């Protein structure tokens, strides 16, 4: 006889299988962890490459000019009409007195951005007292200079294959030796609209366009989506028509968004005569794109409200609409908001439907209202990615960073709202 307690045959059977059961669990855990590791690696790689390509765009190269606002330049009444490009040129020639040939002079003026003249114009029209004085003014360098300073151009390739030739290199080095070239934070990138000169290009126009477009889309799709979800879920009779509508909404959620662009072109622009390329039409089209998502998310959120709450409200004599607005809707709101924000995040990234309604466009002026022509962030990225100038590469990545930042902000908002409304009790 052994001392160990006798184990029943059932316990033995259970113990025999235990190891296998635990192994299955371990295997599953390992698979889960590796899936997450793979996903994180991709994410880190994506972010890493975008950020490493784009972070340089947040700085821009400036050249310091010793501008003497000579009286002779400002003879006319209208200060803005003065020959500011000429002033920039004269300043550069005076900084490099050895440059005499016509060709060299042209090469020299290519070092500063065409924006420099407009900057001087702005300064003088704002403060006419500058006339007659000499000022040290930092102006934007040309994008090729910027690329060179940031190390994106190789100095060692043959001269004919460089966009900056040997003479220009020598001038840039001379400026740098005198501390007249520096990199500054690129505020312009956040305050100006599109430009074909990479050093002047900014995302504010596209950002405004995105904000207006999303505002319209949100202001329409949220109330319509919530109302439709409530009607379908709580009020619609249970019949073939309702089923048909439900199937169609589910199908619409899967329709490629360019179809909505075509629809928008046909209805909003051609039939209603709304202006092309505007956030108004863009917002309407994106409303169509996001509505199915919002309705489906809204219905799911309504479905998840426990029936006991509905019974409690009805049992006390609340009418159906009171039951919905007082009890069901507040409980479904976090889910609906999450669905809406996910829909909006999708809308933020859409370009295809906007092609049809003319929002893939070069627009310099910052839109001031929903009826001004505008473009949106993803379109700006698309347009820059397609531009020949090398300096747009980093701008493209920088714009992607901004778009991602917006997406994160929106998802953060989704989480915040969800917690806020859920935590209430």
């Amino acid at each position: 006889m052994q001392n160990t307690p006798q184990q029943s045959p059932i316990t033995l059977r259970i113990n025999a299988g235990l190891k296998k059961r635990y192994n299955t669990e371990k295997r599953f855990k390992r698979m889960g962890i590796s899936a997450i590791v793979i996903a994180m690696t991709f994410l880190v790689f994506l972010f890493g490459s975008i950020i490493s390509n784009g972070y340089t765009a947040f700085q821009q190269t400036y050249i310091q000019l010793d501008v003497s606002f000579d009286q002779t330049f400002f003879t006319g009444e209208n200060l803005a009409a003065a020959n500011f490009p000429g002033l920039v040129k004269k300043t550069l020639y005076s900084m490099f007195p050895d440059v005499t040939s016509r060709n060299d002079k042209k090469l020299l003026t290519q070092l500063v951005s065409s924006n420099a003249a407009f900057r001087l114009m702005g300064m003088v029209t704002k403060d006419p007292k500058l006339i007659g004085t000499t000022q040290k003014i930092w102006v934007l360098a040309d994008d090729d200079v910027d690329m060179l300073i940031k190390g994106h151009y190789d100095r060692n390739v043959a001269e004919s294959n460089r966009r900056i030739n040997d003479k220009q290199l020598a001038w840039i080095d001379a400026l740098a030796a005198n501390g007249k070239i520096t990199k500054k934070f690129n505020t312009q990138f956040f305050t100006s609209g599109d430009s074909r000169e990479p050093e002047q290009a900014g995302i504010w126009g596209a950002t405004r366009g995105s904000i207006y477009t999303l505002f319209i889309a949100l202001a329409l799709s949220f109330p319509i989506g919530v109302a439709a979800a409530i009607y379908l879920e709580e009020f619609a009779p249970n019949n073939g028509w309702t089923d048909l509508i439900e199937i169609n909404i589910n199908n619409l959620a899967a329709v490629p968004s360019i179809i909505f662009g075509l629809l928008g072109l046909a209805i909003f622009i051609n039939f209603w005569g709304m202006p092309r390329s505007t956030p108004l039409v863009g917002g309407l089209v994106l409303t169509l794109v996001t509505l199915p998502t919002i309705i489906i998310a809204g219905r799911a959120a309504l479905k998840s409200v426990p029936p006991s709450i509905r019974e409690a409200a009805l049992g006390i004599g609340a009418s159906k609409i009171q039951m919905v607005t007082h009890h069901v809707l507040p409980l479904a709101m976090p889910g609906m908001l999450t669905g809406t924000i996910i829909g909006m995040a999708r809308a933020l990234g859409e370009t295809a439907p906007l092609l049809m309604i003319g929002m893939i466009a070069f627009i310099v002026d910052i839109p001031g209202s929903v009826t001004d022509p505008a473009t949106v962030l993803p379109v700006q990225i698309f347009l820059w990615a397609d531009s020949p100038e090398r300096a747009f590469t980093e701008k493209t990545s920088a714009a992607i960073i901004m778009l991602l930042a917006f997406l994160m902000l929106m998802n953060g908002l989704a989480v915040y709202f969800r917690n806020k409304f859920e935590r209430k009790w």
Partner: protein
Amino acid sequence: MKMKALLLASALTATMISSAPAMAARDYISIVGSSTVYPFATVVAEQYGKSTSFKTPKIESTGSGGGFKLFCSGVGVEFPDITNASRAIKSSEVETCAKNGVKDIVEVKIGYDGIVIANAKQGEPLKLTRQEIYLALAKEVPDPKNPDKLIANPYINWSDINSSLPNTKIEVLGPPPTSGTRDAFVELVMDEGAKSFEFIKKMDKKEFARVAQTVREDGAYVEAGENDNLIVQKLQANPAALGIFGFSFLDQNSDVIQGSIVEEQAPTFENIADGKYSVSRPLFFYVKKAHVDVIPGIKEYLGEFSSEKAWGEEGYLADKGMIPMPEAERAQYAEAVKNLKTM
């Protein structure tokens, strides 16, 4: 409270939308059209916007065909004023225009765009003829043993076509059929290359188009998307590959890629401008005359575009990679612009 705010927002939006169609006038120029002309027209537009009191024109990149379709839809503020094109307007498009009341159209040629065949600097520089390019890329080519018969393209390496070419695999990254660059490439290179064979040249029009313009699908030609920057990047990663794209991308990336010599001529600015480099096409824009006095600033925009400082030999468009027209041609079109001479 929340409900009310929501209702208010929707009411606001509703009024905004219902009042929108009322605003009929347009105070900016609306331009559509070719993505090849887009990088040049936008420079002009930006310059014009900054140096005049007018708003900067809106330029949509719709492709030449899409541009004509919009342009020809009618006369009125909701239709574009100008369309850019990397080819001349077709007679069918002129008819559509006329049917929709767009009768007086001013055609303006602005310059040329070269199409280059390039590879990475690490690769060997190539010297090609249009016939060789045709043989390398067409789906069906004349049988080398029986030169009156077509067979499926047998060439694998460049040296199979011409022993003086490098012994590397034929691998060409180029634009998809939806692209204007592809149309121009087919017309300027493939058609010409095919014509160098007498029996293909004699074929009827349809058959010729099929033989000359069908690109092989066995992986030697890779459709790399509309984005030329992407092709440039892929070339750097794969020095054995060739890419087909617009001259301005070669111009901007001359430190990392090199253009192949075609028919003895290198794709340089000068050679394209002189017309020596054969693979180049004219660029145009078309103006709706009926809009000129309605939409403010069109005349000034045309003036800016046709000024020497824009499209001249030393102009800023040349800096961006557009090949200017010869002086006489510039003068001719500047005159046409000035008098709004219709087609």
